């Protein structure tokens, strides 16, 4: 039992899953999509003037991202609302799902987070190119800078631009991995100390147990915060792409 074995990918659904490489990570992604779809469909079915619990949840999620997108990008941002909303809900539900016992956190894999960040990066670049055309390349060379510095400034700006998907994905991935490793380490302490020295051991084990309870609360905060940071950074990048300054 080591702290990293929880991130191992294992095929599920028997021989069929084995044949196509359908892992528990993919299964949890499907589950997350199912939960989000169910939430939005159930939440909007009643269309009550005074929302019930599910409708209130769906509406507050919608309004939260709507305010975020229009606040960051402006009125044009409404076009990108579906994208940012899907991204936010997928990451949020994935993070929260991973906190349940026996569940798998698919956002703890760099392949997943980098794929999401790469989609964001491609969209931002395509939007910037579509709106501004070749003027987009002026982004890599600020106006008024001396021409002689171009060989220095352009590669630096280019690397800075290319580092966006890397930092976006590493931030989410590292936060999720760190949280889950900590939880596992302290849970191991509970078992090791609790089983070692009788009554004294049980007393001693209550310490890491209490810490783990606090950590789970903290991890719920991190789950929300990281989904929010991913969404807001996507909006900031889209703002840059739309307004290009």
């Amino acid at each position: 039992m080591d702290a990293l074995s929880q991130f191992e990918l294992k095929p599920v659904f028997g021989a069929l899953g084995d044949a196509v490489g359908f892992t528990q990570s993919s299964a949890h992604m499907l589950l997350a999509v199912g939960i989000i779809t169910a939430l939005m469909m159930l939440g909007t079915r009643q269309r009550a003037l005074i929302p019930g619990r599910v409708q209130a949840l769906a509406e507050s999620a919608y309004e939260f991202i709507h305010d975020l997108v229009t606040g960051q990008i402006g009125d044009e941002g409404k076009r990108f609302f579906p994208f940012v909303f899907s991204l936010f809900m997928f990451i949020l539900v994935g993070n929260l799902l991973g906190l349940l016992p026996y569940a798998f956190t698919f956002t703890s894999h760099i392949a997943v987070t980098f794929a999401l960040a790469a989609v964001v990066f491609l969209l931002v670049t395509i939007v910037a190119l579509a709106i501004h055309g070749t003027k987009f390349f002026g982004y890599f060379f600020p106006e008024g800078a001396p021409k002689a510095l171009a060989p220095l400034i352009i590669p630096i700006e280019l690397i800075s631009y290319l580092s966006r998907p890397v930092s976006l994905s590493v931030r989410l991935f590292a936060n999720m991995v760190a949280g889950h490793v900590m939880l596992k380490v302290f849970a191991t302490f509970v078992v090791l100390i609790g089983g070692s020295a009788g009554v004294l051991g049980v007393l001693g084990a209550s310490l890491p147990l209490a810490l783990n309870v606090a950590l789970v609360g903290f991890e719920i905060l991190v789950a929300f915060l990281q989904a929010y940071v991913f969404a807001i950074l996507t909006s900031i990048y889209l703002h840059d792409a739309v307004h290009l300054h």
Partner: protein
Amino acid sequence: MSEQDSFEERLRQAQARRGKDPGSAKAGLPRGNWGVGFRAGVELVSSLVVGIGIGWFLDRWLGTWPWLFLVFFVLGSAAGVLNVYRLFAPRGRP
């Protein structure tokens, strides 16, 4: 005078609606010490990784090891510092 004021006010509102209000940008990002510190670290490292990656790849392709690697190592570090600077600098191009 009051007409001037109301114009400024309407202009500011219109700009904020279009997402051009410099004050509102980045206001939503978490401002905790740990969060900012972690963000700065990630920005620094990721730029360095991208720089090293480009240099290493170009060197392999052009067979100029280790010169482009060294050049892009320095450029990547500079880009990392630039990213961290942009994290703290007010919005708008430096």
